[in-house]
């Protein structure tokens, strides 16, 4: 996690420096604000990753060590979901949602119907399957 966190922190700091130069040179609020936001995009994930790296006792995972063998990673990787119809239903709900912005609020009815059923479906699917 160390190098991952350094990558994000570097980007955040770089954009911060660039933003400071930009602000004092141009006094342009728009660009300076957007660059300031970008600094957070670099620092928040960077610090989060570093926090977990530190919490693990500066532990290097098998994928961080050049000398690791495949066997060291034996065991469960993760639980991956099977086929699911709900992402499509949710996306269709979103589509009706934005169409409601264009053609009239009545389209919000199918949007809510699709969206809600997809949310319920997502939740129930996870419960039934059970993640370990």
């Amino acid at each position, binding site marked *: 996690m160390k190098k991952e966190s350094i990558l994000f922190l570097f980007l955040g700091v770089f954009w911060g420096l660039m933003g400071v130069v930009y602000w004092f*040179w141009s006094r342009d609020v728009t660009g300076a604000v957007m660059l300031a936001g970008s600094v957070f995009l670099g620092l928040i994930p960077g610090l989060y990753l570093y926090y977990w790296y530190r919490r693990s006792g500066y532990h290097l995972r098998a994928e961080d060590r050049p000398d690791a063998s495949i066997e060291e990673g034996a*065991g469960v990787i993760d639980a991956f979901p099977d086929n699911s119809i709900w992402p499509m239903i949710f996306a269709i709900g979103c589509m009706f949602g*934005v169409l409601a912005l264009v053609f009239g609020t009545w389209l919000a009815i199918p949007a809510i119907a699709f969206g809600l059923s997809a949310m319920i479906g997502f939740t129930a699917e996870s419960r039934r399957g059970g993640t370990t």
Partner: protein
Amino acid sequence: MTDVIDRPVNLDSDDQGPVNPDHGHDHGHDHHGPSGLVKWMTSTDHKVIGISYTVTSLTMMIIGGAFAEIIRAQLVSPTSTLVSFAQYNELFTMHGSVMIYLFVGPFAFAGLANYLVPLQIGAPDMAFPRLNLLSYWLYLCGSLVMLSGFLTSGGAANFGWVGYAPLSNVTASPGSGADLWIVALMLTGFSAIFSGVNLVATIFYLRAPGMTLFRMPIFTWNMLITGILILLAFPILTGGLVMLYCDRHFGTHIFTVSGGGVPLLWQHIFWFWGHPEVYILALPMFGMVTEVFAVFSKKPIFGYRGMVFATISIGALSLGVWAHHMFTTGAVLLPFFSAMSLLIAVPTGIKMFNWIGTMWGGKVTYSTSMLMAMGFLFTFLVGGITGIYLASPPIDFFTHDTYFVVAHFHSVVMALVLGAMSAIFLWFPKMSGIMLNERLGKFQFWFLFIGTQVFTFPMYLVGLKGMPRRMAVYPNNPSWQSLNQWASVGALLIGISMVFFIVNALYSFKKRVPAGDNPWDAQTLEWYTSSPPPAHNFVSLPPIHSERPTWDYNHPDHLSLGHGNKEKAKAGS
């Protein structure tokens, strides 16, 4: 239901190689999943989603390309009446929008990336498979919403793909076509953000043991930086679109002067997304051709670390160049943006140098894929050099909004198309298990490559003569006609090249020449597994001691040196 996936570990020392997908593992339940339409709608497998993205985005390329052919047909004569002015405005707007938002982007960061990134790092899937599927469906729904603008009474959006205020306000662009454009981009914007999240999380958390960051293939590295840029840029565009929508319908005055707003703010927001977006489109193709050069030169990538740091530098600098699109507004800090834009040529130049270095002294095979990548190199060089001209404000003042700029970015994006085709020819055997026809592919290459140059060079010249972009007719300047006709011939050649591509795909699926696991003797991990890979990708994994694990496995007498492997190679020899 969920599947709990174990790491594929070879417990028997003499492993059977990568081929046998049922070897010792319980993948049976995956093999009886749905097929056809239901598979397309419901599969959370990154390979299925990657192929869906690729096919959908290539379809969008054909739609956007058809718009381009109509535009070029209109410009053949100075007073052509093939389409009306209003239709012409819709056509160039939708050509740009379809190509940028619906073709190049999704093809680059979601199509091939979805398919390849987990395979290249030895992962069973993307980190969030259902989010991945949602991302695809948001993209498809967004595409349909945008294109449905043509069905409305007022026609599709007609303010250019950049949607500049005040042209995009409700007075200048009434009608639902413009609104459909705005809300479609909200959908595709979220789709892109989800893809970005997935890419970064997958690369950080699902790598195989030994696959350190500095052993990842360059394509995966480029996708990591692309993912970060997506997370940065796309929320800003979506935010801007919400503001634009509010201006149009809720009476806010964010971009309208009358209520105290600032139209220029839109340009700032748009290009703060738009310039990183250029790299979001380009970095994946850079990664693809890097792999192609290495595979067909039978060499490791020249300057691997230089390549990685160049990518990171491009990502870092890409945030400081947005206003070079706004030099002529007279309201931006010229020296800052000019300097930053020139600076970004340095890492790009390093990449150019490294690509040539990879080929240098290699055993080069002139396959279709390699030819496409070399075509990319030349065309991107032309686009890049003219980009350096345009980074200089005096030249930009002279050429802004002329065909010179149009030619510049078409050189760049046509280079990306060549890069994309090169990638398709390289990875199609992995995705389908069959080979594409090389002879048809070479026809496609020559038509595409020559067509691109015949198409762009006259546009540079006619731009320097002063022809403005987005003009349906030019009756007062008949001298521009011959150059425009040449550009149209080029566009026609490009169109013919795409016919070769479609014929090639159909022919190859009929002929079915089996590819085998590793038809190119390639180097990275995706070539270790079968073609197409089994559910959850790997039945076994080779030891990963360098950035070329498959090469090391297949050529134990020619181990890769460097990146933590020097001592091992010495000890082994």
